[in-house]
C-alpha cells in the first residue's frame, strides 16, 4: 500500500457552522508534493467543497498563504516531507477574519496598502512623449529588495503587534512605502510620512522581527520599518530646529 499522510484542515461555512473546526483527511504522501498539492488532491478526489485561494503554484502570485502547523507559509512552497510523518495542520492566515474554510477576508490589508500610496509620485508628471524616468542600476539596488513583495500577507499573520492592534499599518505596507520612498524617481516621501509617522504607522512596531522571518521573498519588512523610524525621527528633529524649512 502506498504511503499516506494525514492533514487536519480548518472547515468553516458561515451558512452552516457556528465556529471553525478541524477536519481530518488522508492523502497520498509524495516527497515532491507541497501542501497545496495535498489540498488540491482533497478538492479533486475527496471533498469538492473545500475552499482556499491559490493560483500560480510557483511562489509569485501570493494567494496561497496559510498557517501550516502554526506558522504562516506559502503552501505552494512548503513540502509535505518537512512535516512527515504528520499530521499536517492547515489553517487560515492568523489575525484575519475567516470567510470560509481557508479563505480569509483581506480588505484590511488592501485598504492599508492603498493608504501608503505605493506608486511613484511626482510633483510634475512628465508627458508620455517626454519619455521614461531613468534610473541607474545603483539607484535600483537601493530599493530592489523591498520591491520583491508579493502581497501574500504572511508577515501580517506573523506579526504579534498586528494581532494585538489591528490598526497597525503592518509590515508589508510599510516596506512597500519604503520601496517608493527610496526610489530615485519618486517625490512622494512627504505625503507618505503623514500616514507612516502616526502611532499606528511605524511607531507601533516593537521590532519583533517575525515578519522578516516569515517573508518568503526575503523582503525584510522589519529592516524597512527600522530604517524608516530613523528617517522619521530625523525629520521630526529637523522640523523642531527649522520649522520653516519643511519641504
Amino acid at each position, binding site marked *: 500500500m502506498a504511503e499516506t499522510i494525514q492533514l487536519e484542515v480548518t472547515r468553516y461555512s458561515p*451558512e*452552516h457552522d457556528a465556529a471553525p473546526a478541524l477536519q481530518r483527511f488522508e492523502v497520498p504522501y509524495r516527497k515532491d508534493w507541497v501542501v497545496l498539492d495535498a489540498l488540491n488532491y482533497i*478538492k*479533486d*478526489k475527496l471533498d*469538492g*467543497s473545500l*475552499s482556499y485561494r491559490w493560483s500560480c503554484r510557483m511562489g509569485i502570485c501570493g494567494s496561497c498563504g496559510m498557517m501550516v502547523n502554526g506558522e504562516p507559509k506559502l503552501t505552494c512552497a512548503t513540502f509535505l516531507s518537512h512535516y512527515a510523518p504528520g499530521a499536517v495542520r492547515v489553517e487560515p492566515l492568523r489575525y484575519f477574519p475567516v*470567510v*470560509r474554510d481557508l479563505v480569509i477576508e483581506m480588505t484590511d490589508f488592501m485598504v492599508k496598502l492603498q493608504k501608503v500610496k505605493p506608486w511613484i509620485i511626482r510633483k510634475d508628471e512628465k508627458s508620455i512623449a517626454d519619455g521614461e524616468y531613468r534610473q541607474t542600476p545603483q539607484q535600483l539596488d537601493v530599493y530592489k529588495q523591498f520591491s520583491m513583495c508579493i502581497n501574500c500577507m504572511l508577515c501580517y499573520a506573523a506579526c504579534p503587534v498586528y494581532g494585538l492592534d489591528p490598526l497597525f499599518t503592518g509590515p508589508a505596507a510599510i516596506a512597500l512605502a519604503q520601496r517608493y520612498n527610496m526610489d530615485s524617481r519618486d517625490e512622494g516621501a512627504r505625503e507618505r510620512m503623514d500616514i507612516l509617522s502616526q502611532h499606528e504607522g511605524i511607531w507601533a512596531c516593537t521590532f519583533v522581527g517575525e515578519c522578516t522571518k516569515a517573508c518568503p521573498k526575503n523582503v525584510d519588512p522589519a529592516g524597512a520599518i527600522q530604517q524608516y523610524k530613523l528617517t522619521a525621527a530625523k525629520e521630526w528633529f529637523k522640523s523642531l530646529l527649522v520649522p520653516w524649512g519643511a519641504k
Partner: protein
Amino acid sequence: MDEDRRLKKQLLEKTEGREHIATIRDEMQKAIENGAGIYRTGTSLGDAAARLRQLQQRYTNTVLDDRGLTFNTELIAAMELGFMLDVAEAIVRCALHRTESRGAHQRTDFPKRDDEKFLVHSLVHRNADGSSRVEHLPVKITRWPPGERVYGEQTQAKDVQAGR
C-alpha cells in the same frame, strides 16, 4: 438573471449525476495533450474530437459537492470546465480543418505550409443543432510578412540564398 437561474438549475441545485469535475478535467487534458499537441495528425485530432464529445456528454452529468453560496470555488471550477471544453472543441475543430503546417500547428500528415488556402484566421461558429463550423477571416499583413521559419544549418543556407 437568466444566467443566475441556469447556474442554479444546472449546477448548484442539481442533485443527480455522478461525475466529478476533476475527473473530466483530467481526461480533457489528456485528450488534448495526446491528440492536439504541437505535432498532430488527422487521426490524433479525430480521436481527440471523439473523446471531447464524450466528455461534453459526461459534463452534463456532473454533480457538485458544494452547494454553498459563500466563496464556492467548486462552482467556479465547474463553469470554467464548461468553457474549457468549448475552447478545446474549437482548437480541435480548427486543427482538423487546417490541412497544412504552420508555427505551433504541425500536421505531420500535411508538413507543408499552404498560404494559398490557409493564410487566414479561423473562426469557429456553433450551429443551431450543436455542431460547429469553421469560417475564415483574411489576415492583414502589417510589419512582419510571413516567411519560412528555419533553424540551425538551414538558417545559414537561407542567408546565403538571400546574399547575406
